[in-house]
């Protein structure tokens, strides 16, 4: 019987994936290419090599998808929500300052200069520059709940309603990024300090939000791999559910299968994947043929 190359091959594929998530594309590609030489029929190695070569070409060619006006949120993030999300432990992967190219915010949204943040296309190479801005843990104390802020129930409901409207409008306009962001923010509002009446609004909008998350997550048959180390995602405001989903990624499991095999409620899984995309924590390989 022939020599068993399986353990060696798997180790190479895995080491390549580790290199890739730490931003060492060329090392990753070298490992994947060695793996493919061991077994030229190995589907996973083949796909990763194709992905790695394409990505390397893009980088060499200096290709960069400029943030598009289409990908920004029309309305500003509600001030009180921005304030809440600044606390390190509760951060969500959203910009904490004014959005690039967006209209003038209605009120001051904090001083942090996060205008570099963009909502580039889903297949962009993540970089320090375009990842979600994170806030230093030692920054000023921020309130725990909405009750600690000078904000009325009407303000919150008005904001939530506005976000639902924005989500719908963006979806109708095929702008998945702002649609998913609006949905995420509305969910945050409902979860953080739900005023009476918001549950109904959110409940009615769940199907809409799910569509937004799905649209932004990308092709459901695309197969993600990690683009940043899992250990760092807490800094991006992501939780252990996101870490769990990241642990399942191998470039062979499609988003649809990932959701089915997550054991998480569908809506939640979709929302987490959408957040991972926004945080540029994952890259997407094409569907398996």
């Amino acid at each position, binding site marked *: 019987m022939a020599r068993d190359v399986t353990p060696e091959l798997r180790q190479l594929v895995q080491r390549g994936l580790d290199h890739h998530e730490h931003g060492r594309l060329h090392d990753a590609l070298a490992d994947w290419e060695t793996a493919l030489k061991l077994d030229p029929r190995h*589907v996973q190695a083949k796909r990763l090599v194709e992905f790695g070569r394409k990505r390397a070409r893009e980088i060499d060619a200096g290709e960069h998808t400029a943030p598009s006006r289409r990908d920004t949120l029309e309305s500003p993030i509600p001030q009180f929500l921005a304030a809440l999300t600044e606390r390190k432990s*509760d951060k969500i992967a959203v910009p904490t300052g004014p959005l690039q190219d967006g209209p003038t915010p209605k009120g001051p949204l904090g001083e942090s200069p996060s205008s570099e943040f963009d909502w580039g296309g889903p297949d962009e190479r993540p970089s320090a520059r375009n990842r979600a801005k994170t806030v230093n843990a030692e920054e000023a104390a921020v309130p725990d709940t909405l009750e600690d802020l000078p904000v009325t129930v009407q303000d919150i409901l008005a904001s939530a309603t506005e976000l639902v409207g924005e989500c719908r409008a963006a979806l109708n306009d095929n702008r998945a990024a702002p649609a998913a962001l609006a949905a995420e923010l509305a969910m945050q509002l409902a979860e953080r300090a739900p005023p009476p009446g918001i549950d109904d609004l959110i409940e009615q909008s769940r199907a809409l939000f799910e569509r937004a998350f799905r649209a932004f997550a990308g092709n459901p048959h695309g197969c993600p791999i990690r683009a940043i180390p899992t250990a760092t995602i807490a800094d991006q405001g992501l939780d*252990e559910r996101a870490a769990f989903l990241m642990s399942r990624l191998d470039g*062979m499991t499609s988003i649809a299968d990932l959701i089915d095999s997550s054991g998480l409620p569908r809506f939640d899984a979709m929302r987490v994947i959408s957040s991972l995309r926004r945080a540029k924590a994952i890259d997407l390989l094409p569907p398996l043929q």
Partner: protein
Amino acid sequence: MPERVIGIDLGTTNSCVAVLEGSTPTVIANRGGYKTTPSVVAIAESGKRLVGHIAKRQAVTNAENTAWAVKRLIGRPWTSPAVQAVKAAVPYPLVEGPHGDVRIRLRDQMFSVPEIAAYVLQEMRAIAEEYLGKPVSKAVVTVPAYFNDGQRQATKDAGRIAGLDVIRIINEPTAAALAYGFGKKVDGKVAVFDLGGGTFDISILDITNGVFEVVATAGDTFLGGEDYDKRLVDWLVQGFAKEHKVDLRSDTMALQRLKDAAEKAKCDLSSVRETEINLPFIISTGRNQAYHLHRVITRSKLEELTLDLTERTIQICRLTMEDAGISPEDLTEVVLVGGMTRMCKVQELVGEFFGREPCKGVHPDEVVAMGASIQGAALVDAAAAPDMLLLDVTPHSLGIMVAGGHFHRLIERNTTVPTAKSHVFTTVRDDQTSVKIVAFQGESDRAEENELLGEFVLSGLRKAAKGEVEVEVTFEISADGIVSVSAQDMETGAEQSITVTAASSLTESEIARMASENQEHMVAARAEEEVEKERQRIEKLVDEAETLLPKVEEILAGTPFGEDSLDNVRLILDDARMAVERRDAGGLEQVAEPLMRTLNMFRGVVDSGRIR
């Protein structure tokens, strides 16, 4: 060329499929590149059926809707101790079925055990079909040597539900021995030590002139690789609790990751002396404060944690050999089967006990499927496996209950199959007009201490003094080990017979219904795949058209072609984008042609623009 027959090792935790290519058995890898596929079936929240790796990966987080190790249940009646033991050990709900059989409830749908097994068989079939590039309808499926008739029948039923004609059921140790070329090259006593993911079996085969006799078989259906994984998980959980005061078992996602990592580490330690277990952000403390798990484990630590498990397998070997009156010196070979026999400690202890270096192929978890594929090819094409005379034996004695509750054997254990034996019985009472034939299998002289196979009544006998009327009882065992019993009134020729189906098996109509439902499910799944393919194709076209649109607009600006036509084209693109997003099969079909025309027009315009 006759149709290819695949060999399937339908395992408790993993299954494997092989086909004979030329004269070489080839194990077929699944899409993920794995040559074994977990025997796990789950129903996702979306209602989708998950089989194999994808099902295994969510087995902890979706525990109630994930069926695994159903082989421990197949063909067993609800009341059997084995079923009750499984019931206590698994998180998925088991309920009693309409025939005193076992049913599994997954997301409010009821499944028989053969149905779940069928989904695994179907997956193996699909893997083979993808590799061979053509449909496969025939298979040889392996079962443990101790499987009784009901369990073998239920395995065949599973094949039928999966749309597979199981042309032969063979014993796993026999298949393993075949894969090693025994029967051709080796005669003598062979020990097959099979430590898989969920079960341990030791079988002693006596191979003479191509006849494989199972002289002794024993094992533990609750001892396998998963128990080794559990020890490793426990060690990790305890270490983490000590360090961080956090119980990882409280979180199903953490536990799922631990299980996956433990299994991987265990496998790695068969080839390296030390490995890292690295699980970043495995749990948080409410406010996203991430805890990471990072530990190094050595091979010797794993061996220490699991030594009693390995020793238990040796203990079972010792008892089995003693019972059978066989000593290690009587053996010609010792064969290792099952993924767990890759573990160095297992090999070491087996070698010590048997006093010889065991035969180990490169892939101990693939040899059973390889053997099954050799048998499959031989069955349809004698030329494929010349000189192969492959005969299995019945593992139990078969007979009926006679006056006084005694067990009258018609077929002795270890008789080569197929076989048929008859015996003439007489009435035991005056004017007795009917006889009840109660068939058993087992080795006890007391009928009731053996396993009941079935019973039927032959009536209409002539009234006469006891001992005058003669009834001939015939037991027949097919090559698959399926038993039928018949009784014939020697005077009138009137006959009654049964094919023994254990009380736990499915009816013909149930099997037919399940097979057709399964077929419908597959057709629907395939249709869905087709829609998805078309959706992806249309999406690519839309992307290209949208990329070209600004250029087209620029070139056509101010030409007689005009805004109206462009508006029309934009509508087509909008419709197409909508159909893509909604996965609307009808919409996709409608837009396909106008979209293609639009794109061709765009390409033409852009090209002509370039020329000018």
